[in-house]
């Protein structure tokens, strides 16, 4: 259970505010430059990357250390990208480039989540200026490793199916009906939940999520619960509220939450996950009563 140890070490100043490291120099050249030599162990601006590697899903993990020079504005993704050009360990051994996922590099696609110095974070928005000179990178826990820092997050999406995280439309066509009025205040709370990017960081940090469980009976986790909260509030999504609530009242549902509150601390989009879980607690209580007495 790597995740628990990691999340207990969480440095909230780092994880929560994102840019507490202060102003950085972004005044580097804007011209497209050819990558300069990054391998200069003597340079005092170099960092040591300790990467937990794994060649295949059933292979044994091992550690490798790389040393490379840091540039102003560097983040964990940019450093891993630079490493692809010179995949040579600190001992001078040429090795395969480190496999990792990244797409948008602006913290909206959710691809690059990994464990950085023991804490689950998006690698793209984790700036080197906020880290020490020795950086430990591991794959996101609670998900099967594909290779190196790549994990398979299929179970995250399976959980969205499990809770029926959709609105049941008659069809994706225009019904010529004006959109319902929604108060700005309600929009503002709903919108927070719609920022979820399915990165899996909340599941990685949650002590109740069992990385070994052969789904679909393990704890459903905060991400899918937040989507239940969001869709239950939607004018049409409300119609299927009982089905969604029943899904989270089943085994592995809401009551498996241990209230560790790690999820809300690590969420890079600051989604009020525990608030959602609290609201769902009330909704499921009402639903249970309705189930008992009819409504």
């Amino acid at each position, binding site marked *: 259970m790597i995740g628990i140890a990691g999340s207990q070490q969480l440095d909230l100043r780092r994880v929560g505010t*994102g*840019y507490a490291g*202060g*102003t950085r120099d*972004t*005044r*580097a050249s*804007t011209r*497209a430059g*050819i*990558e300069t030599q990054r391998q200069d162990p003597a340079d005092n601006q170099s960092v040591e990357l300790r990467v937990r590697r794994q*060649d295949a899903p059933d292979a044994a993990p091992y550690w490798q250390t790389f040393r490379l020079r840091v*540039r102003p504005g560097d*983040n964990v993704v*940019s450093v891993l990208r630079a490493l*692809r*050009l010179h*995949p040579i360990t600190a001992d001078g051994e*040429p090795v*395969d*480039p480190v*496999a990792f996922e990244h*797409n*948008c*590099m*602006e*913290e*909206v*696609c959710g*691809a690059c989540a990994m464990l950085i110095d023991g804490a689950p974070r998006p690698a793209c*928005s984790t*700036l080197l*200026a906020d880290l020490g000179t020795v950086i430990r990178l591991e794959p996101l826990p609670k998900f099967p490793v*594909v*290779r190196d820092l*790549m994990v398979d*997050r*299929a179970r995250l*999406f399976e959980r*969205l*199916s499990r809770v029926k995280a*959709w*609105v*049941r439309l008659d069809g*994706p066509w*225009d*019904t010529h009906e*004006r*959109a319902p*009025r*929604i108060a*700005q205040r309600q*929009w503002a709370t709903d*919108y927070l939940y*719609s*920022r979820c*990017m399915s990165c899996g960081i909340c599941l990685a940090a949650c002590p109740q999520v069992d990385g070994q469980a052969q789904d679909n009976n393990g704890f459903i986790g905060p991400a899918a619960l937040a989507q239940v909260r*969001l*869709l239950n509030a*939607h004018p049409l999504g409300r119609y299927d509220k009982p089905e969604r609530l029943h899904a989270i009242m089943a085994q592995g549902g809401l009551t498996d939450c241990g209230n560790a509150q790690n999820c809300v601390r690590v969420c890079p989009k600051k989604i009020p996950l525990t608030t959602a879980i609290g609201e769902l607690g009330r909704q499921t209580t009402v639903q249970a009563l309705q189930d008992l007495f009819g409504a």
Partner: protein
Amino acid sequence: MTGRRVIVVGGGLGGLWATLAIAGGGHRVLLFSLFEVMRSHSVCAQGGINAVLDYQGQHDSVAQHIRDTLKGGSWLANQPPVKSMCEAAPGLIRTFERMGVTFSRTPEGLLDQRLFGGVKHKRTCFAGASTGQQLMHGVDQQVRRLEAEGRVEKHEWWEYLGLVKDGAGVCRGVVAMDLRSLGVQAFPADAVVLATGGLGQLYAPQTTCSTNSTGAAASRAYQQGARFANAELFQFHPTAMLGEDKTRLMSEAARGEGGRVWVPKDPADRREPNRIPEAERWYFLEDWYPAYGNTVPRDIASRAIWRVCRELKQGIGGGDRVYLDLTHLDPGFVESRLGAILSIYRKFAGTDPLDAPMEIFPAAHYAMGGLWVDFERDPASGGVKPGSPRNHATSIAGLYACGECDYGYHGANRLGANSLLSASYSGRVAGEAVLSHLAGIERGADAVPAAPFDAEVARQQAINRELMTGQGNESPYRLHEELGALMTSRVGVVRDNAGLDRALEELAALERRAAHMALAEASPWANQTLAYARQVQDMIRLARVMAASARVRDECRGAHYKPEFDLPLPQSGRSAQDLGSPEWSQYRERWAANNARWLKTTVAEYSADGPRIDFEPVDLSVLAPDQPRDYR
């Protein structure tokens, strides 16, 4: 499950809309994506999606949306598809809303709309400043529901490598590679839809695009015979953050909501921007374009910033940067409407745009050009004929394209917030066209003999083998860097024929070198370098199409700017009011003569010696080009 089998390649907004339409029509969809769906570049769209609702008391109209789009694109778009897209926009918004998209609201609870560039009406619906992500949530959830019902089968972490064509040249399926096992496999289908996105990575790292926006898939289709249109028309977004790994987008909504672009009058002024008094700032967009000010279209804003920094040497500190300033606006207002981009800027630049102006510069953003697609004009409406199997059909029978990888809607320059619209609309239209296409098929792909499938698998495996065992010495990563630097400097915001000739020579040399790569990795499992190397080869071939198309178009149109052929607007008067003056009459004659020569679509076809470029006429049946673009 009855019905036929259709392959959709790409899990962004276009691909998911096509999937909804096709699966909704009772057919089975195999959805291919390079990664888990929801990680596509569509999620990066920020500012909004255009649709005329006229909720803001500004007398907006669909006719005006059509005119703004056509004129914004320098009249180069075929007009019936634009007309139909603008007419469909309000219905698309209502559909997204039903799906659960959290569109921002006005105080009385209606859909809010904001101002975007090249437009005088508030027409852009939005969900904070993460509109693309929110629209994706909507369609992703609908597709997940179809998946749960067994009507859609996702193939995530699979890369499309090539088409399978039968003896008659009809597309009968694809060959794809499992990015984990590296297995190469053929998938027969009765129709294929490419929704594979843009190609900003040709300019990396000076691009706002995700790492997957390589254009490799479109390039592969082009190399197998699909025509590629208007490749030279590529948009540079005026307001991207500075950065060495990526130049992150700061939405046009920042200007639409009141953001101002400026530089210190004295480029040597080293004071903090907040300490520079108004009188010592130069708001050059407001100065040069008083009518539209900061919300001029993107091509105009990008060139203006380019001119200030490169020609006038007036960039901040003499460098390639200008200020985008939100500090004069109400912080609560800015936070609620632009929160997502504020957060990106804070995280990556380390300063708060509410405290100090952002520093920005233009960066590669969006391909107006793309795979050539057909449409059928409906004489009754003047738009496209609903459900025609010709809509969004590429030049290869059975192959469709939608979203940014096609060339359909934006002419020579795309207006902000029209891309989420065209991605959604074109995906739906392509899906409906596929339904009609399937209805007309007599024999399905299952009846096609195995030979063409086996041949294409063998061809793709040979490419992999060559790369995995090759004795070359070129690094794919380094070749990509060289490609990005070359494209940025020679096929960028400002172009000239000598530079384009050089670019074509250099690209040919890059292509030769790319045939001799060393992967430095032999892993048979999840080998990312192999996939990357293949993409780089195909990116270089696509870059040649862009450079060759840019070379032949000897004029300035939208984002394609060759100063040598510029027709400067008359200094006195304005296009809208003074068309009768002698100066303007003369200008309009020259403008019309230039249109007679160049108002046509560039069409490239693949040949082993390099792209063959030809032209075809633009359908101008909706609105005759009557106004030069004048945003002053």
